[in-house]
């Protein structure tokens, strides 16, 4: 069919790529640029057109620094525990178990449930009066009085991380399971013939074979965890005090509760920069492969 437009073959690629590029610009570029432009607008009407005062105010905001630290702890412990538990479960589910597909499905379930639902369920499980967790621990004599999981300043953040461990490990497990299945069986058989123990095989065959997948899982999980919002909002709303406040909940609060669009945008930009920096190794690795 002749539409009256003639495009040389060597330029055809641009035509195919164009819709995708336009879509990306629309759904990613536009909000990003809008957010960036908001972040350099003054909060006070009538002040200078553009300013860096929102970024300067971030440095002076005591809640922001605490929130940044909380985010770092939350992300580090969440991701580390996801990798450890995800790897352990992936290794188990990679074995020839009876009803293996069923176990794989069960292991995936926590990841399927929406964040907010997980938060609400666990808030009830942690409840000092009605909560199932305290009830079980009291009955087995592990504790003598109910624990205030979400109100105790020493426990609140770790209680949220514990839920996040349960919530997020299947994602890592799934990636690592795919990696495990790609490791040739004969490597293990050869190692066994050479007298290698299972632990030696794990450290000298499994881990090196999973290296790339671990980097992928790390990068993606870090990005996920920095953005984690619904879980914390449903469980603690950042409390007690600001002990469980993280960057995502703090940004939400500044934007939608306090209507500080400009300041919230500055926080969002900082978050984006941090996430980009974290993603660099992943991007580098992908580009190396190509």
């Amino acid at each position, binding site marked *: 069919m002749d539409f009256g437009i003639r495009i040389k073959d060597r330029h055809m690629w641009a035509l195919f790529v164009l819709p995708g590029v336009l879509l990306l610009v629309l759904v990613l570029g536009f909000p990003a640029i809008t957010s960036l432009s908001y972040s350099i607008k003054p909060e006070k009407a009538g002040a200078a057109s553009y300013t860096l005062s929102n970024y300067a105010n971030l440095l002076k905001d005591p809640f922001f620094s605490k929130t940044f630290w909380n985010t770092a702890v939350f992300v580090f412990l969440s991701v580390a525990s996801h990798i450890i538990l995800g790897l352990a479960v992936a290794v188990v589910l990679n074995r020839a178990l009876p009803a293996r597909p069923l176990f794989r499905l069960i292991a995936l379930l926590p990841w399927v449930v929406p964040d907010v639902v997980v938060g609400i369920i666990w808030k009830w499980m942690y409840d000092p009066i009605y909560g199932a967790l305290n009830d079980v621990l009291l009955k087995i004599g592990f504790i003598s*009085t109910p624990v205030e999981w979400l109100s105790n300043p020493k426990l609140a953040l770790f209680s949220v991380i514990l839920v996040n461990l349960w919530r997020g490990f299947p994602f890592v497990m799934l990636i690592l399971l795919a990696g495990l299945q790609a490791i040739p069986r004969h490597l293990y058989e050869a190692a066994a013939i050479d007298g290698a123990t299972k632990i030696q095989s794990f450290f000298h065959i499994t881990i090196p074979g999973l290296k790339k997948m671990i980097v992928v899982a790390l990068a993606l999980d870090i990005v996920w965890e920095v953005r984690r919002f619904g879980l914390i909002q449903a469980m603690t*709303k950042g409390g*007690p005090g600001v002990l469980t406040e993280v960057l995502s909940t703090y940004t939400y609060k500044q934007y939608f*509760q*306090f*209507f500080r669009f400009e300041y919230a945008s500055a926080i969002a930009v900082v978050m984006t920069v941090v996430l980009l920096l974290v993603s660099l190794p992943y991007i580098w690795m992908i580009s190396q492969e190509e």
Partner: protein
Amino acid sequence: MKKIGIIGICTVVVLALFCFQPAAAEVTLRFSDWHLTEDVWNKSLNEGMAIFHKRYPNIKVTLEPVSYGEKETKYTVESAAGRAPDVFHVHAFSLPMFFGKGFAKDLTPFIEKEGPGFLDAWYPLPLKLMKHNGKIHAMPGDYMTMVLFYNTEMFKAAGLDPNKPPKTWDEFLTYAKKLTRDTNGDGKVDQWGFGTLGAKSPGFSLRFGPFIWSFGADYLTPDMKRSALDSAKAKEAFAFFVELYTKHKVVPPGLTAMGAQDVRTQLAQKKVAMILGSGWTPPIVNKINPDLKAFEVLKAAPAPMKRKQATAIWLSSWVMSPNTKHPNEAWELMKFITSKEIELKWFVDNRVTSSRKDVSGVAPEILNDKFASVLASQLPYGKVEPQIKQWPEIMDTFTTSLQEAVVGMKTPEKALAEAHERINAILAR
């Protein structure tokens, strides 16, 4: 023959003009309210909209539910995009932010068209709060006071007279201590005197208002330029509240994670004997646990006092989006949902008192109701939170400090002093 033909054609044309006149165009309005997510209210609102549609057959109303916690988020985003519902329902304390961003339409032209005296039916205070730059930008909705709800059976079991609720905070503490008990004899407390919110929630300030104001203190100075939390009375009120949990232990554990529904569940499950609530409390508690027979067992009393009778007022408001394409029809809808007839329906169905004097002040349905009569009696002592755009941030800062004191991270004095400094910094910004 030719003449007959012409007459025939003319007749057909005339008939066609009469018979096939296009019907007046149907207008569709978008109406959003968090109440649509609540069973009792949802039914009531649907009935109300059916009545409206009967009276205005050319106006179709589509209902958009939104969760209580997400309403500001939804309306902010949609307003910024120029796609907010034509009419929506928000807290009065959210209004300054909506006004400041130009997300509420000026209703003055519509009110002027209604003629003089149209607004006389409303209480002056809610009307005052609907104004932006001296002009009405929203219509007042639910108007209720916070009062003390208590379980009469639990009072009796603790040896307290259910007809003599506590009148002062000191008396309240004595009652709360008696009501904090081990009911099953296992040596552990399983019932507490008082249930209250401690989570960061818009509902917290409603529950703390009766404390701070009756102690004679306030959050801000009268000009709303500075924090007033450094007063001795504010310190006393703050410490009293914190110590209910930390020292007297008359509040159940886990306070900082407790939201409004958690506390109502505690009352419904007989874990606490007293809570601060309003018109919505009995139906919700009844819904959580019908076996309690909330309408029979619960009683309401004015919030206890320290130096003066004072309580917090809950006020909601109806906003018309400035982007509405059908402002006249949207106004008809707003007028309808705030009319005397429908405000009375909201009360009968949902037990919420109205910001209309000719409903809350005179309707026998309200004056003879054991809960609503107490709510209405407290309107003269009601106080609203400061209507400034920084209020949500100020309240969040205050609650953060209160939580730090409650969980023992800081002493009440230090936590309040920090809140005072931070609030001053917010106001100076």
